[in-house]
């Protein structure tokens, strides 16, 4: 095995483009490891950890492109050549295309009708770009992470003064006037407006509404820190206010993990300002010690419950309590459980959506007598000591930063999850593996084409060791998504997945499969 580095001075590409190139290279025969990154200090750290930091790479500047390959000697030059070809192809396409302004302000001048900026540059540049966008009167979806709390507070304060949306930082999802921004699904127009501090939460609620035949006016993401005490729910409140005065919105859904009490009180107070039915989903919150709420405010404990209540309110004017349960008879359940070995006692959730991982844990806390360990646990006692090894019941959020540094998100790149899936299949204690499959813009163009074969392989692996392996899951998606819900569902079911109508339903089923009889 040898390591070779190629430095391309002053050549900039965005991180996703580079990761796509790295992914293609890593699939070449004989190639062990690949990094295609800009020569920033952070990236050099990654190269060092991966053992790919050569002296040439060490000397590269933040504006230089670094291609590092570890491979069998004959594959080395082939991989480097292929890298250049892939990058060149991208460049030729760009030169042949339309003129692309180099700054946001020039883009605004070129199209004064622009009204929304989507910002996904590296965190340390993101705040400056967001300021520039707000100053030009643009609403902002700030996808970037690693923006300081002070910047977030100042940006949101300014945005509120100017009546603009500042969604984020770390806001992955928004639906504005029917257009999906970031990771979002194709949802029909309808009467429900959503404000969510959780990206996949917004996706799950909106797709469950769509599955129930109910559309959406707006889906506003606020970023995960919005309901922290310091930020005070600035965008949740601004979005809520806007939906309250929006004549198209008849039902409002608010989604967040449980916020600081003072912030929750503020949100409740604002929700009480209007008579519009409002579903308040604070994931895992029991609302037991909350003061009595006005009749038009409907608490919900899970994303599924929030979507079902909102659908009911929109369709019949009353909150529904029905769930999207896949009705499995006791007989069917027993059929599934039959043949599990005595040591197969645990469920393993492998999630790409952070909120979906959280929602599953909320349900499992009630349904399972044993603790559920996680790298993103509900409480610190259930912290998984090693994120790379499951223990007992485990819920792994593969979209957490520890897994995504220098790698594409598991909603785009299935490789890491497939590896983990096979690892769990090899574990004699695993009874059930649960997956979430997220469709829509931003996500992998055909996840079932990779997850399907992986599920077959996992089951074959367990089989070879004399065990059966149960696979359950759900799809966060719609028929109008580019990947098509029905096509994905068919492929996953054919591969052996028991497909449920919602993430919550899949979590309940998984729990029933391992719960003591």
């Amino acid at each position, binding site marked *: 095995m040898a390591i070779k580095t190629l430095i391309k001075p002053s050549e*900039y590409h*965005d*991180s*996703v483009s580079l990761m796509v190139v790295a992914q293609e290279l890593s699939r070449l025969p004989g190639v062990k490891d690949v990094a295609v990154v800009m020569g920033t200090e952070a990236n050099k750290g990654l190269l060092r950890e991966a053992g790919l930091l050569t002296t040439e790479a060490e000397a590269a500047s*933040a*504006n230089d492109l670094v291609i590092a390959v570890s491979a069998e000697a004959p594959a080395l030059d082939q991989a480097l050549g292929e890298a250049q070809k892939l990058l060149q192809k991208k460049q030729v396409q*760009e030169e042949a295309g339309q*003129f*692309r*302004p*180099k*700054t*946001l302000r*020039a*883009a*605004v*001048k*070129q*199209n004064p*009708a*622009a*009204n*929304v*900026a*989507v*910002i*996904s*540059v590296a965190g340390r*540049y993101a705040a*400056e*770009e967001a300021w520039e*966008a707000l100053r030009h009167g*643009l609403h902002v979806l700030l*996808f*970037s992470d690693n923006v300081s709390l002070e910047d977030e507070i100042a940006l949101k304060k300014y945005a509120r003064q*100017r*009546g*603009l*949306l500042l969604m984020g930082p770390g806001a992955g999802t928004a639906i*504005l*006037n029917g*257009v*999906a*921004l*970031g990771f979002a699904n*194709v949802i029909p127009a309808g009467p429900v407006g959503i404000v969510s501090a959780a990206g996949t939460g917004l996706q799950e609620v909106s797709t469950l509404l769509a599955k129930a035949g109910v559309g959406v*006016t*707006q889906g506003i993401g606020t970023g995960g820190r919005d309901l922290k005490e310091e930020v005070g729910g600035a965008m949740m409140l*601004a979005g809520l*206010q*806007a939906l*309250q*005065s*929006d004549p*198209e919105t008849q039902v409002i859904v608010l989604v967040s993990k449980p916020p600081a009490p003072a912030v929750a009180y503020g949100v409740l107070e604002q929700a009480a*300002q*209007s008579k519009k039915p409002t579903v308040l989903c604070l994931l895992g919150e029991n609302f037991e010690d909350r003061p009595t709420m006005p009749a038009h405010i409907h608490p919900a404990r899970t994303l599924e419950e929030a979507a079902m209540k909102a659908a009911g309110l929109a369709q019949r004017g009353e909150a529904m309590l029905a769930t999207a349960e896949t009705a499995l008879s006791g007989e069917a359940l027993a059929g599934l459980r039959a043949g599990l070995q005595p040591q197969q006692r645990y469920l393993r959730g492998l999630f790409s959506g952070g909120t979906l991982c959280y929602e599953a844990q909320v349900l499992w806390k009630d349904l399972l007598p044993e603790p559920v360990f996680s790298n993103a646990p509900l409480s610190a006692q259930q912290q998984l000591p090693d994120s790379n090894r499951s223990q007992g019941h485990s819920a792994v959020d593969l979209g957490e930063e520890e897994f995504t540094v220098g790698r594409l998100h598991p909603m785009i790149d299935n490789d890491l999850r497939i590896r983990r899936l096979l690892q769990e299949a090899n574990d004699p204690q695993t009874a059930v593996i649960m997956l979430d499959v997220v469709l829509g*813009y*931003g996500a992998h163009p055909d996840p079932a084409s990779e997850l399907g074969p992986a599920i077959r392989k996992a089951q074959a692996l367990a089989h070879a060791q004399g065990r059966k392996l149960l696979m359950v899951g759900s799809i966060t998606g719609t028929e109008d998504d*580019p990947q098509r819900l029905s096509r994905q569902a068919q492929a996953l079911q054919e591969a052996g997945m028991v497909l449920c109508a919602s993430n919550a339903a899949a979590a309940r089923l998984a729990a029933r499969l391992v719960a003591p009889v």
Partner: protein
Amino acid sequence: MSETTINNLFGKPLSVINVGLSSMAQSVEAQGTPVIDVDWRPPAESVPRLRVTRSGVDIEAANDETCRRIKQGRPVLVSMGIARDVIPGMHERMILHAGPPVSWERMCGPTRGAVMGALIYEGLAKDEADAAKLAASSAIEYSPCHHHHAVGPMAGVVSPSMPVFIIENKAFGNRAFCTQNEGLGKVLRYGGMGPEVYARLKWMETTLYPALDRALQSLPDGIDLRSMIAQALHMGDECHNRNRAATSLFLRAIGPALARTSRDNEVLAQVIEFIDRNDHFFLNLSMPAGKAMLEPAEGIPGSTIVTVMARNGTDFGIRLSSMPERWFTAPAGKVQGLYFPQFTEADANPDIGDSTVTETSGYGGMAMAAAPAITKFVGGTPQLALKTTLEMYEITHDEHEQFTIPALNFRGTPCGIDVRKVMETGILPQINTGIAHKQPGIGMVGAGILRAPARCFEDAFEVLKNQ
């Protein structure tokens, strides 16, 4: 409940600007929603954002004022005169040249050729050897055109006897000066020397000038150059390297007056023929028109707008509105272009001339999109012309509402080069230009394009940081 402006977005067609991951833009585009995917780069680490000067001046407001003055300018060709009589500070032993100040020792070949040629034309030297001796002596004083409200193409040499156009900026009352254009090939401004060069200059002084002067005197309102430039931009000129349409417009405007004031039909025919055969006749009007527009914009405290860009064939120099007396110079660059038969890049002198006054004013290379034919100089396409102008918007403060570009849906040309934006983006001003032979006495050898050198802007920015 009061209507917030977040609600103003609801129900409106979305139009997106994407900064970062291109995949995000592709998703938006796939939904049929318009999106501009910014070709974003990390900002240069060492370039601080300047917003307010140390003395508290709001730079943006200062630049607004600078550009307001440029755009308000209305240059009109009002009359003509002889350099020694009309150019302030001009005297019998003074030679004006293009670009920043330069001594005889540092002058490039074509400027030396033009100086020697001018001395012979003036009768101050009898031959080239004599002229070289005189030129090197202290008997001759050299001064940049820009120090005298004048501009000159290429070598930009103005000697005392040369007739000059007088352009008045009607909005501010200031005046600018420029010689008559000699045509292409072996001509004085490209460093050409020889009997035919002097004979042409003499004819221009004794025949062309009186005819044009008489005609202008019969036109009480003069000739509105701003409107003529605006029209030419709609006819395929950018009024720096292509002046074919503007020259025709000029001839059309002055034609009747020339005829009415003519004393001799043969002279009239010669004058018309001379202008008609020189596609660049209007260059010597588009340049002083720019100079006349830029001078009132000088001296705005805090302004980071470039009000002078000029080259003497050795150095490239810029001056800023807030520091109108100070030159920031760097070695003049190499022109990329097409050469006349028998000449190559090896014959080329570095970039030369005051004609970058056109780019400084918001046309020339800035308006490349108006003149797609220009791109053939570099083997480019009309698409390249569009991209060039669109890129120039990145470094200009404003857009000139009088000068518009049909191909960009009549968008105003990029106007007012902002040193801060040049530094932040690393994009340098586009320049369209002719190419002179590096040896004195030969003349024009080609034409092409290049970018202004970075160092002038870096040095100016260093000073602005402490301003």
